[in-house]
């Protein structure tokens, strides 16, 4: 399955913010906005909901924490108790450093992995590359809601908001 997506190219941060807002307010569906660097205020302009990635991070951190504590408890209290300097087998302070490290490790790796999967950035994933958005152009991609003819109106709108070029691209949906 593939659908045509309309790309509008802009040459400044201010114009792309303005046009993004206009496109969204006119009722078009924003496929995405591509910029060479993080543009402040773009999240608001696109009307993005707060990222759900934080929950992945929190959950993975909690999992890492629980696993680390359980593993240490199991190995040093249940499976193979060792007397270390007369300390109790279940020595909570000694477990903390490993627990901390594993919490951070799980949270960090899971967050990066979840981001890559969600953004479909993995080997074998074919994504079209927009020319110049890694250099000096800002691009707005508009997906049609129903009829592809609707995109003509969107093209007009973006032109009026300062698009320097427009293009139609087939992308995998």
């Amino acid at each position, binding site marked *: 399955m593939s659908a045509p997506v309309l790309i509008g190219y802009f040459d400044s941060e201010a114009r792309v913010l303005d046009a993004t807002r206009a496109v969204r307010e006119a009722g078009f569906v924003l496929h995405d906005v591509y910029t060479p660097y993080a543009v*402040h*205020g773009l999240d608001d302009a696109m009307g993005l909901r*707060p990222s759900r990635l*934080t929950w992945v991070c*929190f959950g993975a951190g909690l999992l890492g924490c629980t696993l680390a504590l359980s593993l240490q408890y199991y190995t040093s209290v249940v499976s193979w108790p060792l007397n270390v*300097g*007369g*300390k109790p087998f279940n020595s909570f*302070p*000694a477990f*903390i*450093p490993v627990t901390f490290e594993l919490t951070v490790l799980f949270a960090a790796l899971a967050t990066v992995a979840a981001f890559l999967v969600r953004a479909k950035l993995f080997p074998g994933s074919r994504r079209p590359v927009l020319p110049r958005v890694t250099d000096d152009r800002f691009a707005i991609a508009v997906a049609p809601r129903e009829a592809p003819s609707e995109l003509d109106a969107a093209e007009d709108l973006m032109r009026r908001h300062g698009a320097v070029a427009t293009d139609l691209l087939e992308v995998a949906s």
Partner: protein
Amino acid sequence: MSALHEVTTAPAAGFEVPPAVHRAAQVLAGVGLGILVAGLAIARERALTSLLTSGFYFLCLGLGGAVFLALMYVANAGWFTVFKRIPEAFAAYVPWGAVTILALLPFVSSLYPWAKPGVMETDHLLHEKAAFLNVPFFAARMGVVLAVWVGFTWMLRRISLRQDAERSPELAGRNVKVSAVFLVLFALTFCLAAFDWLMTLEPHWFSTIYALYNFAGLLSSTVCAMTIAAILLHRAGALPQLNTSHLHDLGKLMFAFATLWAYLWFSQYLLIWYANIPEETVYFITRLHGTWAVAFYANVVLNWALPFVLLLPRPAKRNPSHLLRVAAILLVGRWLDLYLMVVPGLQPDGVAVGVFELAGFVGMAALFTLAVTRTVRSTPMVPVGDPYLVESLHHHT
């Protein structure tokens, strides 16, 4: 640049606190410090520990203001400029705070075990440390430390005021140079202060991370006090330029320094617990018995566990009312932390927080408020001569 235009054409006047607040602060300072002085006659040790705990607490807030400024200057940071008059006003308390610490000097022999008459002769361990732990050298170190702090806070303030008058970008470079020197000297003198004034209360015990651990407490409490001051001034209409992004960054620093504190607190505890050497564990044994144990665990909850959870979500760091609550928790925690450093060695029986502790804290807090509001009144709230002001006005995270 309409925002900048508004700022630069605003009347060059400071913020006047309501007279009722000023009056209340004067009364509380008078009553609190009066009770403390009376306490010197009635219950000398209680009054002295209260003077040390609260005196050091607020001196750290003042000093922390200067350290925050210096850190921002050397990092060429531009986001904080809009509210930099707040840390500057805090720093203006340093001379006052220095006096509260100097007030301890006549009573060294009533407070510090190593200075008590006859102790040096009978205690072999302390006798070995006599070259360092003696009253003249202690007083000299205190003098040098306080002089460095007063001198550098005065210099930083003077450059900032000259910026307003001269609007010369070269002064920003001078800020960086003075700050770099100050940060090095601060690190050395603050270690000395923490070891001398606090750690020698239990002169047999030692911990090399102790100063660093205090450093984290200083940064955490300063960021909290600055956040409270910024929000209150914003609500009073004195700092309309403060936006959600500034608060967000203050919230992040609060979160980060609370975690740094926990990291260092635990580093000290873990190493002593692991090694299990009697001369080191004695410190924690006192603090883990009787009512001290409650305070010991409450310390970790107030200074780290609660703030960590409460500041974790992004919206939490952008909500002024929420930040006020968390900052208050951390500031109570900081007092408890210092109380736990000062008192258990001298009063191992248990927690005793009463009229003297309260009077010391309230009196010193009122004194701090007076110093800060006096400085805030004398200069315009927004530093119009700072070249980073535009960046700060447009700060966006």
